[in-house]
């Protein structure tokens, strides 16, 4: 059904999207937690910084990434000399771009759920002998699960659809950075490429539909069940 080239594109998109979302998850959660629970000077600045990739045109985000992580950029140079790692033209760079674009969506979703956690339950856990850490893992985190799953879905969908920052940062290299949206862009450049565009767009939709169904299933398996038994 799919050509080998299309398989490659899909596999790459999944890899980039999956790695981006999973790697961002703990960072996004930490930021969401801090924003939800603490008042400190610079809180609004952090909040604004997180929203930045949403506000700036993706091309600008890609350009900033290029300036920072390119071989001539400060972080890029440092990565190269210390770890021998370069993100240029690599799928890891595409994942970085996708992660940064997904970050604001993930933080917001998780923050909403964290703000909804009943803190008295954390207190109850503490009186039962739970350390703050243990209460976090067993009470706060599971109670924030709906937000975490929403973050996963949003983040994955955004990653799967990320175009502007990726092409600007790591170009459009087949098999390495050419994810679905970039392949769609390429197809759009070819006159009469509409059929190909449609085909690839449907593939994107199928991927995110899969992620959606998976997440709904997860919600039902965890959070949903205890609600259904209620009144």
């Amino acid at each position, binding site marked *: 059904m799919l050509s080998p080239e299309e398989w490659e594109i899909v596999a790459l998109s999944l890899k980039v999207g999956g790695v981006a979302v999973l790697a961002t998850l703990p960072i996004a959660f930490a930021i969401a937690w801090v924003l939800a629970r603490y008042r400190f000077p610079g809180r609004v600045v952090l909040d604004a910084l997180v929203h930045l990739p949403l506000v700036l045109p993706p*091309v600008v985000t*890609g*350009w900033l990434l*290029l*300036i920072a992580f*390119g*071989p*001539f*950029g400060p972080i*890029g140079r440092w990565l190269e000399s210390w770890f021998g790692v*370069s993100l*240029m*033209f690599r799928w890891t760079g595409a994942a970085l771009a996708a992660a940064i674009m997904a970050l604001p969506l993930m933080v917001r979703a998780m923050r909403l759920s964290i703000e909804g956690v009943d803190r008295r339950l954390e207190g109850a856990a503490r009186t039962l002998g739970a350390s703050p850490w243990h209460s976090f893992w067993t009470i706060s985190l599971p109670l924030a699960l709906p937000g975490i799953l929403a973050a996963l879905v949003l983040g994955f969908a955004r990653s799967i659809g990320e175009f502007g920052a990726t*092409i*600007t940062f790591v*170009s*459009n*290299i*087949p098999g390495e*950075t050419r994810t679905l949206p970039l392949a769609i*862009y*390429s197809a*759009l*450049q*070819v*006159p*009469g490429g509409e059929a190909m565009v449609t085909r690839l767009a449907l593939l994107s939709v199928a991927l995110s539909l899969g992620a959606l169904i998976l997440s709904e299933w997860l919600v039902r398996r965890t959070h949903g069940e205890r609600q259904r038994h209620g009144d």
Partner: protein
Amino acid sequence: QERGPVVLAAASLQESLTEAANAWAAKGHAKPVLSFAASSALARQVMAGAPADLFLSADEEWMDAVAKAGLLRAGTRTTLLGNRLVLIAPASSQVRLTPARGFALAKALGTGRLALADPDAVPAGKYAKAALTHLGVWSSVAAKVAPAENVRAAMALVERGAAPLGIVYATDARASKAVRVVGTFPASSHPPIRYPVALLKASRIKDAAGFRAFLLSKQGRAIFARHGFSAP
């Protein structure tokens, strides 16, 4: 086997360059890795130190910028291709118009808009603006322009009937069934449309020079000609 050279090329070269790369690979060379994007994005990547071998820009200005940054290999810059500008209309349109001095473009547009690549930013748009200025009609249509992201997007506006007329490259118009070429702009009405090519200083792959030479060879040029590009 050695990896093929990494070629950064303007998006409008997608079909023709892919064909040329396949022909090159058929000769037993490692297949070049082709990355298509806007010339501006590619030039920025080069200037940020991207490890690429060959750069094909859709205009001279971005190649100049890369050259100024000292990132071109000396003596390898040359003009690969030329192109022409055409006036297009939706396939169903009856409009008749020949681009010439003082032609009745504004009247033909009526209340509609003229689809262009962004005349302040994108090469195709800059050429179109130059041509219309040269023909003395720019001032009468400047307020009716619909600047698009790139040539293909401008063409899509015409294809979908959003704009009754548009100006795009001949190579683009040729390949679309949904638009009709109304007329071709005189080559003298705008600066020559040139696609420069150059090897990059960062290039480490020996084959890159060979591929560049192949593109400039008779066989290479024939492939581009088949896609409607003119010789420079």
